[in-house]
């Protein structure tokens, strides 16, 4: 039993002593990633870059003036509007010469209002897909804004018209009152004359209500019923000379009261609310605001743990083989298991020290919340290191030289950056490619650290199971492959 401990302990001590004799290496392992994140946090702007934009169109046209008004009123961010250019080709040449970032080509005025949607072309020339996406989103937003403005203007016009309508309704109600009075006075001639006038007026009123029906519908006003009632009343009044009495005059008055209320509601409504009935308010449920540097900090920690463990484990074994140490150890009474156990413990201790120092820095400097459960945090870090060391050993059993080991370790780093959710959200990576993501210890660690630090939750069982599975499979593979590679250098 004592011998079983002495030999692995020899590897632990050798690795620790060798590393401690290189203080700059340790320092760079901790400070390097921290400084990268720090400088990134300092230099990165959350705002999109401002795009210099020129509009193609006649300066005197209605559309251009509308665009000018829009830019002036809407306080558009991210767009530096540098004016109009009548010639489309000149504007596009300026785009090709990198003088402007965007060219907006307005449609000819005769294409607008024809019953078809008029197209506004937006030309870009950016090779950066992020900026390209930004342009598309900005163009969509601007189009919605312009469309909303048009609708709001139409609404305003309708509201202006409702003033006349309201007056007409009031006038019609007066006439009804007169008709009712005339019926009481038994003045048939006066009654017929008033009824005729009222009939004509109600017809006109029905036309106006009909025109405003689409807008009234937005308000939930049953304008078509009002229109029908008005026409029905008009017809009744027109037929007064042939039929008596006027039983429906009270009903007609009630109908006009209803129409008066509807018109008043339409007149008093805010066009902006009509056009944009909803606004959005995003409320974050995370314990702290997740800024960009806070988001990347756990990711960087995960990435560093994987990279340090993979590189150290791979290079350590390849160098042992290249120096001939592996031969000496094969001759000595040491098993591959003892050798791997000792080396692994050493990498875990060194990796844990790096993790502790990096965690302290990101918590104190970037304000990343401390993990809600330290035990889980330590367990997750150690399991990440273990799985990564397993990858390192597998690389060592494939690589023949230092440079091959370094190349493969860098490839692992690249895969981790692209597939772990650090660069692109994990949800945007489709299966089966997402299995590549879950094959990376960084992916599990990043997810787990975010749960512990940014969401204030426990690490999900999937992460524990995934990392444990990776570690077991990789270390078992290393146990088989390393002796084979040592005997086939």
């Amino acid at each position, binding site marked *: 039993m004592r011998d079983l401990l002495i*030999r692995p*302990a*020899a590897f632990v001590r050798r690795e620790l002593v*060798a590393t401690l004799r290189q203080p700059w290496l340790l320092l760079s392992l901790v400070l390097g990633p921290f400084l990268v994140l720090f400088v990134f946090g300092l230099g990165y702007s959350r705002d999109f870059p401002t795009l210099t934009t020129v509009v193609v169109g006649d300066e005197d046209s209605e559309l251009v003036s509308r665009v000018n008004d829009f830019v002036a009123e809407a306080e558009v961010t991210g767009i530096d509007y540098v004016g109009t250019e009548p010639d489309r080709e000149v504007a596009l040449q300026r785009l090709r010469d990198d003088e402007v970032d965007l060219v907006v080509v307005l449609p000819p005025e005769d294409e607008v209002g024809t019953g078809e949607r008029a197209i506004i072309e937006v030309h870009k020339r950016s090779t950066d897909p992020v900026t390209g996406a930004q342009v598309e989103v900005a163009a969509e937003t601007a189009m919605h804004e312009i469309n909303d403005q048009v609708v709001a203007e139409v609404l305003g016009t309708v509201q202006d018209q409702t003033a006349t309508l309201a007056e007409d309704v009031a006038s019609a109600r007066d006439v009804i009152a007169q008709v009712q009075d005339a019926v009481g006075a038994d003045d048939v001639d006066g009654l017929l004359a008033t009824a005729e006038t009222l009939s004509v007026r109600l017809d006109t009123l029905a036309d106006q209500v009909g025109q405003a029906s689409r807008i009234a519908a937005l308000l939930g006003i049953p304008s078509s019923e009002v229109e029908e009632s008005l026409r029905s009343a008009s017809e009744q009044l027109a037929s007064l000379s042939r039929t008596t009495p006027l039983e429906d005059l009270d009903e007609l008055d009630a109908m006009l009261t209803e129409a008066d209320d509807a018109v008043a509601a339409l007149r008093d409504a805010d066009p902006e609310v009509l056009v944009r009935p909803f606004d959005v308010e995003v409320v974050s449920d995370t314990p702290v605001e997740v800024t960009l540097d806070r988001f990347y900090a756990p990711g960087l920690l995960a990435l560093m743990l994987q990279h340090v463990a993979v590189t150290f484990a791979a290079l350590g074994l390849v160098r042992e083989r290249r*120096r001939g140490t592996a031969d000496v150890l*094969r001759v*000595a009474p*040491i098993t591959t298991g003892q050798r791997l156990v000792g080396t692994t413990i050493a990498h875990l201790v060194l990796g844990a020290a790096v993790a502790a120092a990096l965690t302290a820095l990101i918590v104190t400097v970037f304000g990343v919340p401390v993990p809600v459960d330290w035990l889980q945090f330590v367990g997750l870090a150690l399991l990440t290191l273990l799985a990564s060391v397993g990858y390192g050993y597998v690389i060592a059993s494939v690589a023949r030289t230092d440079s091959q080991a370094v190349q493969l370790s860098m490839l692992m780093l690249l895969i981790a950056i692209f597939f772990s959710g650090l660069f692109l959200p994990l949800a945007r990576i489709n299966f089966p490619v997402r299995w590549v993501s879950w094959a990376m210890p960084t992916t599990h660690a990043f997810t787990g650290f975010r749960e512990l630090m940014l969401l204030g939750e426990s690490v999900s069982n999937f992460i524990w199971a995934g990392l444990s599975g990776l570690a077991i499979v990789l270390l078992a593979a290393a146990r088989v492959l390393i002796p084979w590679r040592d005997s086939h250098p």
Partner: protein
Amino acid sequence: MPPPNDAAPADAATDHADRRESGGGRSGDAVVRARGVDHVFDGGRGVHDMELDIPQGCIFGLVGPSGSGKTTMVRLILGLLVPQDGSLEVFGVAPDDFSKDERERIGFLPQESALDPGLSLQHNLQFMASAYGMPWRGRWMPGKRAARARDRIDELLELLDLSDERGTRLGDASTGEQRRLGIAAAMVHDPDLLVLDEPTAGIDPLLREQLWGHFDDLREKGRTLLVTTQYVTEADECDLVGLVIDGEILRVAPPDELRHEAFGGDLVEVAGQDRLPVGDLVDVEGVVGIQRRTARGGLLLLVEDAEATTERLRTALGSQDDDTVTVSTHRPSFDDVFVRLVRAHREGDLDSPQRSSLARHRKDATDA
């Protein structure tokens, strides 16, 4: 200089001493025995038909030019390569079946510096000691075994004149210091069989001489040393020499026997007189012929047996009465021996040398 065993090394080493006493301890027993071993790499290079008996308590030198197959033979003996044909035993066990016990009885110095250049000389030795089951702990930690391991390391550093450099990083140490540390690492557990692959490569002659002195001491303590070298002259330092060319062991014999075979007899130098009576000398019994004239005007004679013939030559020349005449045994350099044997082998003049020589040594071992 205290012998390794007397210095109370760690338990692993004392266990070996017990095994030496109880089994396989009689001088002359073959520690390594190879019969018809083949291991050929792609391209045809490798080891062909290796026949070898390395008796216990001797320095066995595998001598040959670079690329001749010495290291492959060493790797076969250590179990780092598996024979494709033939049988090979070390301590009576096939190397690929070595147990922990056999491994603890072997010390190995590879050609390249197999130690960690980032560690100090002392830390490297401590690591190797731990690999052989000797605890590596600081002085402030209790434990008799660890204390013995520290003593053993101190003793080896002293023995190889490395005490003053114990704290130096191996990567900063000189080539000689690195080589000596490698030897110390191979000896740290006091093994029965010490396999040293090119131990003197890149080392200055003074230090080389010093190292061979250490090897002699180890041999005196009953250890068996298998040493490979491309310095042919070092064959003189060995008890038995295996001459390796093109993956084959041409001859296994003591150095003087190889000299005798290379020249077809012994060499005697006659010098001192202005004109030597060549005709009279050739007629002396035991003289085979004249090898060549020497630079000082003397003659180098090829004789059947130098010891017996020298006296006859002195008598014939009357040198007992003439101080100006000297008759002495001439020991040609091993470079010459090597060149002659290799040339003879390549011209087909050496037939089955290996087996005949081996058979003779097997007989010697039995007689002993």
